[in-house]
């Protein structure tokens, strides 16, 4: 880890966390509706993956806020999307679960568990065919690894030999069901290792995730073949805002929070002189302002015209 990397890690993780804490608050106030899935506690996994991967197309599930933030999509467009406004990244038609932006190579935002993995295989095929691939990454949760989509995709990525990184964020719970109760393997990377190289990393350590993803990226680009990473992480919040979370013990949560990815980074980086207290204070202030501006932007933005209902169904209208 070097100074500039540590600074980026801190900025995006902090921005991601504050964005979500504020989103939670706005949800409670009724400004945000629907399902809101927070990734608080998982920032090391999300930020490490996106920064480690660099350029290239990215597909993700519905817990997509922090990934989008790390991709560099301005938070005001994301907050406006949560508020359902026309200025949102998906024009207020997608909401929390459906952030899309082709200009950021960000392909959703998909809310059917595991069903976006075949899209990533197909896109990786297309890019390889067209001879212009930076590599493709698809993120999915532990729950998705029990689905047919997952196994079909492991097989086809290996058959087609496409440059695709399978990135599994294992937060140990498929909604409210602990993964080892419904999966034959506790170590999920073992499901992939007969198809492609597969490793497990500590997802609470942003640098470990970053390192593993950077190496994987090099591999898929040079070899033109798929690769698999399982990042062990934990979400502090329930599955979504409408879930009580009482299927987990307070002790289990506390143990995870003791390994908090942001605290973890701060401790290490301050000690090694990669971050300074001044820098951290400055970032905290900057993040606070940015979130404030994002909320203000969302509040002041217009609702979509009712005519919008009929737009964006087809390209050729």
């Amino acid at each position, binding site marked *: 880890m070097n100074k500039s990397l540590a600074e980026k890690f801190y900025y995006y993780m902090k921005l991601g966390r504050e964005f979500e804490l504020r989103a939670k608050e706005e949800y409670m106030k009724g400004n945000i509706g629907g399902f809101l899935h927070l990734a608080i506690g998982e920032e090391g996994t999300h930020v490490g993956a996106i920064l480690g991967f660099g350029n290239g*197309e990215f597909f993700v599930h519905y817990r997509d806020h922090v990934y989008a933030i790390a991709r560099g999509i301005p938070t005001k467009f994301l907050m406006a999307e949560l508020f359902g406004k026309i200025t*949102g*990244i*998906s*024009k*207020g*038609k*997608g909401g929390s679960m*459906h952030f*899309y*932006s*082709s200009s950021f190579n960000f*392909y*959703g*935002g*998909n809310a*059917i568990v595991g*069903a*976006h*993995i*075949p*899209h*990533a*295989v*197909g*896109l*990786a*095929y*297309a*890019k390889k*065919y*067209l001879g212009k691939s930076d590599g493709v990454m698809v993120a999915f949760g532990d729950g998705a690894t029990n689905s*047919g*989509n997952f196994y*079909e*995709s492991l*097989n*086809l990525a290996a*058959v087609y030999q496409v440059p695709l990184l399978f990135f599994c964020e294992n937060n140990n719970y498929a909604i409210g069901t602990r993964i080892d109760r419904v999966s034959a393997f506790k170590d999920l990377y073992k499901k992939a290792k007969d198809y492609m190289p597969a490793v497990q990393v500590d997802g609470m350590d942003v640098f470990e995730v970053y390192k593993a993803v950077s190496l994987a990226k090099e591999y898929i680009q040079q070899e033109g073949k798929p690769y698999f990473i399982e990042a062990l992480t934990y979400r502090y919040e329930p599955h979504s805002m409408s879930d009580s979370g009482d299927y987990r013990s307070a002790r289990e949560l506390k143990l995870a929070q003791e390994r908090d990815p942001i605290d973890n980074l701060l401790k290490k980086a301050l000690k090694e002189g990669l971050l300074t207290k001044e820098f951290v204070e400055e970032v905290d202030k900057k993040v606070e302002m940015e979130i404030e501006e994002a909320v203000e932007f969302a509040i002041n933005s217009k609702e979509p015209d009712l005519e919008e209902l009929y*737009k*964006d*169904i*087809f*390209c*050729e209208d």
Partner: protein
Amino acid sequence: MLYRDALKKAMDDLMEIDDTIVLLGEDIGFYGGNYRVTDGLFAKYGEKRVIDTPIAENSIVGNAIGMALGGLRPIAEIMTSNFSLLAYDQIVNHLAKIRYMSGGDLCIPLTIRMPQGVAKQLAAQHSQSFERIFASIPGLKVFTASDSITAYYGLKQAILSDDPVIFLEHILLYSQDFPFYEIDNFDITKQRVIKNGENITLVSYLKMLHDSLQAVKEVEKVLGITVEVIELTSLSPLNLDLVYESVKKTKRLVVVSEEPKTGSFTSEIITKVMENCFYYLDGPPLRITAEDTPISYNRNLELFSIPTPDKIATKIINWGREHGL
């Protein structure tokens, strides 16, 4: 030109000029296609463009969505519409929704071809028709090909469309030889008048169109009337202007399809005609469909469950007599 050759020619002609067009499906490449529609394309374009997939319909459509997002113009073949149910999530939750959920950011120029309908003793899992379940999903276009003209020009239009198209073929039409001629400005969404007539408007598509045309000869002879026959080439978007115009003239409507009756696409056609032409009608519409049963293996039961030219004729004649023709 054989119907299957017209389909192949549509793909071949476009593949020659656009190398972003790729095909994928089960047995479509080396094997030549279960119904030989893609025969020869593997040799001509190679395995990167004519992709043999495993038997995994969900991934065929899921991968094709990704290919389309990645700058290709894929054509997926589902061996028969019966197997499309394995890809139903990909078709409904993804293919039909991604553009909308992305606020218009993304386009998915994907055509999914599939044959449907009753062939001969293929039993309940290989004999179904599903236009009702595709045509009722916002975000999908649904075209039908009933002869070599619609097969060629319609499929070309589907492939060139930047939107998702479900392209329905009929399993018994592949080996049929239909007239083929050049047409300028073909537009599959406009529907087609196949035959002019004065006393009944008959609406149909796919194989039932041909069975109906046979039946119409008998009906016209027995009742001493003429029947106007309209082919629906596009079930979504569903433009019925030609049908309304015709019904206002003939004052009678018959719709024929191979789906089981309850909730079949005939219901939608009739509802729209009732909404738009109610006061022009001289009697209730007639709906001729398959029975509300699974299709049987036994040949007698199979034929008993679906419309045939004889049955279509008898039903129209009885209905006509009952209602003043």
